[in-house]
């Protein structure tokens, strides 16, 4: 026994090469610090490669010099070490052999072609003659396709057939393409039977053990017992003889298929996911004015930036559209009354999205909806100057209504010249249909609002972006803009988070907003459809932002719908009006299922950014250890590595998080959605962002 016996590794197995045969022995039981693993249980390590033996390596290196080494950080194993040791081991070996190494790099998920391609650009230093790759066969082939130098493998892929499933369970499916489990009571004859027999036992079993491997239970005895227990033996005996069709697994067909789904998935921008849309609950329900609430609670903090200062007192009489809170800084917005009536309280009240009490003005409506005298139509658009329009938008308290709540007047005065305005009508969040209805029912207002923005910013073109799951809205808008030279409709294939500013710009314009930058850095402003409708209202009727369109939906809402709702209306009233919940086991969120905020009480008011209230089924899961499945990296539209954020947050290593660009995260939750270990990744990201902001 000799050569590459490695110690001190996290692997559960060490491999010995001996006389050309492989021997595997069990190494010391895993004793790491991960507290998810119960005693007696082991997380299996599905490391996909191991270094070739020293003899093989020395013959490989014979006559080759000036090596560049690329090592994959492995996948499907517990995420305990950032760097895998194999690269250093190889470098040591190469040094012993007197080889010149021009450099080395360790890469995560080498088979992720998009990321690898970017990392490999200009990576190979001058003078490199040979590239050595330490990875499974997929990584090696990815590099061989990309590098212009000869590529050599310093590792062998390990033969673990059939470990599919995302969680690391035992080998249980061989992907035969003709599932036999229905006949066999859920025990797989392909994997569990040494001979993969599909029509019953071979007769060779002794005392219930397989004749091929005496450590293995006879699969067909297991199948028999399971079926006997369920009283299905008769059913089994009546089955026709099964013939396994080996042509069902046709690599070419599968390869072509995978190629097409990858193209589809990477369409427009990297990453993103396709959660079930479930928009059918409410997409065809026309807008309805929500009955006037008796009391409204108007929060002073409905936008990004400093809260507004209340300018009314208890006992004051107010009217619809009257300013009740004054903006208190450059990034802030005024707040207006949505009803006419009496101020009954000016005090902190529970806030829907922050989860704590925030200053609010509580108004009891007199039911008359008397307009405030300041609510007057402005001059025609043609006569308004850009500064006048910005002032109208500012005074109307208009903020981004897609949820972020950034004051719109600030956006309209970008620091850099802007050539294109993108109107975000994607509504990529599942379930929500508010913007969809606005597009259908307020098309003229949207065109008017866009005209105003174009005039204000001097941009040449306005593009209304709508996802292809809203064909009726596309048709309506296309007709509206067909006679307008500087407006068009862009139809985007559905993918979440299409509506996020940066992904939208990449998808439509092919421009990439730099890390830490704003859309204006690439000459674009993005505004939400509902925001544009509010701008149109502010100019045409003089009405500030006091109501909005929102969807009340979800599988647990009795009667879903789309409503025009006064800001400050209680969520409880909305739910009651919609017939309440179907049962008690319900999760209520303000916003959509992906980015919405869970509500712990229904006694919170609707705000300018509340595009919906959803009531959905609860989901109870327990966080499992990260297995480096790499899916979070695969779906992150900002091209980050979310798995590192979880690890670094646990270590409170904020600097490392910053270095991994955590500040670029848009909190779209794709990573958390796709996580096979159900890790609340966003909590770690938020903690990191807060700590980094504190570092400054």
């Amino acid at each position, binding site marked *: 026994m000799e050569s590459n016996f490695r110690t001190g590794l996290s692997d559960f197995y060490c491999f010995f090469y001996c006389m050309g045969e492989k021997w595997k022995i069990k190494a010391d039981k895993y004793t790491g610090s991960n507290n998810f693993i119960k005693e007696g249980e082991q997380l299996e390590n599905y490391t996909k490669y191991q270094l070739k033996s020293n003899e093989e390596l020395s013959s490989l290196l014979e006559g080759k010099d000036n090596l560049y080494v690329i090592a994959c950080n492995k996948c499907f194993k517990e995420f305990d070490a950032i760097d895998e040791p194999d690269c250093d081991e190889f470098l040591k070996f190469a040094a012993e052999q007197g080889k010149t190494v021009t450099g080395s790099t360790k890469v995560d998920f080498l088979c992720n072609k998009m990321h690898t391609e970017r990392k490999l650009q200009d990576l190979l230093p001058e003078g490199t003659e040979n590239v050595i790759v330490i990875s499974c066969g997929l990584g090696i082939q990815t590099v061989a396709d990309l590098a212009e130098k000869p590529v050599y493998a310093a590792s062998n892929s390990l033969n673990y057939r059939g470990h599919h499933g995302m969680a690391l369970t035992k080998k249980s499916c061989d992907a035969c393409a003709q599932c036999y489990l229905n006949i066999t009571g859920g025990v797989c004859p392909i994997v569990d039977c040494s001979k993969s027999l599909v029509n019953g036992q071979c007769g060779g079993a002794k005392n219930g053990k397989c004749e091929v491997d005496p450590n293995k239970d006879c699969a067909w005895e297991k199948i028999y017992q399971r079926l006997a227990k369920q009283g299905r033996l008769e059913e089994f005996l009546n089955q026709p003889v099964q013939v396994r069709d080996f042509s069902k697994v046709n690599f*070419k067909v599968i390869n072509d298929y995978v190629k097409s789904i990858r193209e589809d998935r990477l369409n427009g921008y990297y990453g993103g996911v396709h959660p079930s849309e479930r928009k059918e609950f409410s997409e065809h329900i026309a807008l309805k004015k929500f009955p006037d609430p008796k009391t409204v609670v108007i929060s002073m903090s409905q936008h990004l930036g400093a809260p507004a200062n209340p300018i009314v007192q208890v006992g004051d009489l107010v009217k619809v559209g009257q300013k009740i809170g004054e903006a208190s800084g450059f990034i802030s917005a005024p707040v207006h009354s949505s009803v006419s009536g009496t101020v009954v309280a000016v005090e902190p009240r529970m806030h829907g999205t922050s989860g704590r009490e925030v200053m609010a003005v509580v108004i009891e409506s007199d039911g008359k909806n008397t307009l405030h005298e300041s609510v007057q139509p402005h001059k025609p658009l043609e006569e308004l100057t850009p500064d006048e329009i910005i002032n109208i938008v500012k005074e109307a308290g208009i903020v981004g209504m897609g949820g972020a709540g950034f004051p719109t007047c600030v956006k309209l005065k970008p620091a850099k010249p802007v050539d294109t305005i993108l109107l975000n009508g994607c509504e990529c969040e599942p379930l929500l249909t508010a913007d969809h209805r606005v597009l259908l029912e307020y098309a003229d207002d949207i065109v008017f609002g866009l005209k105003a923005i174009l005039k204000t910013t001097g941009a040449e073109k306005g593009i209304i972006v709508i996802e292809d799951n809203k064909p009726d809205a596309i048709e309506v808008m296309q007709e509206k803009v067909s006679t307008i030279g500087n407006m068009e409709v862009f139809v985007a294939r559905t993918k979440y988070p299409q509506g996020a500013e940066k992904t939208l710009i990449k998808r439509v314009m092919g421009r990439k907003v730099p890390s830490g930058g704003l859309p204006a850095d690439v000459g674009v402003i993005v505004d939400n459809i509902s925001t544009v409708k509010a701008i149109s209202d502010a100019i045409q009727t003089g009405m500030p932002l006091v109501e909005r369109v929102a969807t009340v939906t979800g599988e647990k809402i009795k009667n879903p719908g789309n409503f025009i709702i006064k800001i400050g209306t209680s969520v409880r009233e909305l739910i009651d009006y919609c017939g309440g919940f179907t049962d008690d086991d319900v999760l209520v969120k303000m916003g959509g299922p992906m980015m919405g905020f869970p509500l712990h009480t229904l006694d919170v008011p609707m705000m300018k950014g509340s595009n919906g209230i959803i009531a959905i089924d609860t989901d109870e899961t327990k966080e499992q250890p990260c297995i480096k499945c790499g899916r979070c990296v695969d779906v992150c539209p900002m091209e980050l590595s979310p798995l590192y954020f979880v690890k670094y947050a646990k270590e409170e290593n904020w600097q490392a998080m910053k270095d991994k660009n955590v500040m670029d995260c848009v909190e779209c939750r794709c990573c958390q959605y796709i996580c096979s270990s159900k890790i609340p990744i966003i909590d770690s990201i938020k903690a990191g962002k807060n700590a980094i902001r504190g570092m400054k």
Partner: protein
Amino acid sequence: MLITQLKAKETITSLTAGKKVFVINCHGCKEVHFPEKEAVELQKELVAEGNVTGIVTTDYICNPENMELRLKKHMDKIREADLVLVFSCGVGVQTVAEYLEDKTVCAACDTYPVPGFQGVTPLEYKCDQCGECYLNLTGGICPITACSKSLVNGQCGGSKNGKCEVDSEMECGWERIYRRLEEIGRLDLLKCPTQIHNFATDDDVK
């Protein structure tokens, strides 16, 4: 990571005929492929027949702990059913079958291998994890997967106009290897000793 495809409708209806059914959908690998539309349609029909006691849509049922947590609150409806119909890969069906040992648990899907499942992203070529990487001898093109016959010592001689004799739509893997080696000036690699493929799996040599 797996590709799943719905079984033929007749197969599924023969399973469910006259039975009360509880349905479990697994969306864990949906981003690779899950026949969502077809599954929804089929389930609508089952519901219309009035035999469905409940439908759960969840993810990663191959993770037993979370699968149990999620099924717990549906146990009444599961008990009511004669059959639990699982729309997932074979791993998921078996995980549920093991948990619900007394129930008939059936698969509504067939499972296909995803090229590159052991990596992160499904790729258009495949590593067969043969355990003896040949890529050094072949210019980075895998003879195990690129050649229909997985030959490791050169072409079989049966290719016609560069196409494989087994599958005429497939390029001959060894012609590709030859061209790649020629490009990088390493045709000498073809003179390496004869390779012998060891078919033993790691399980066999445990």
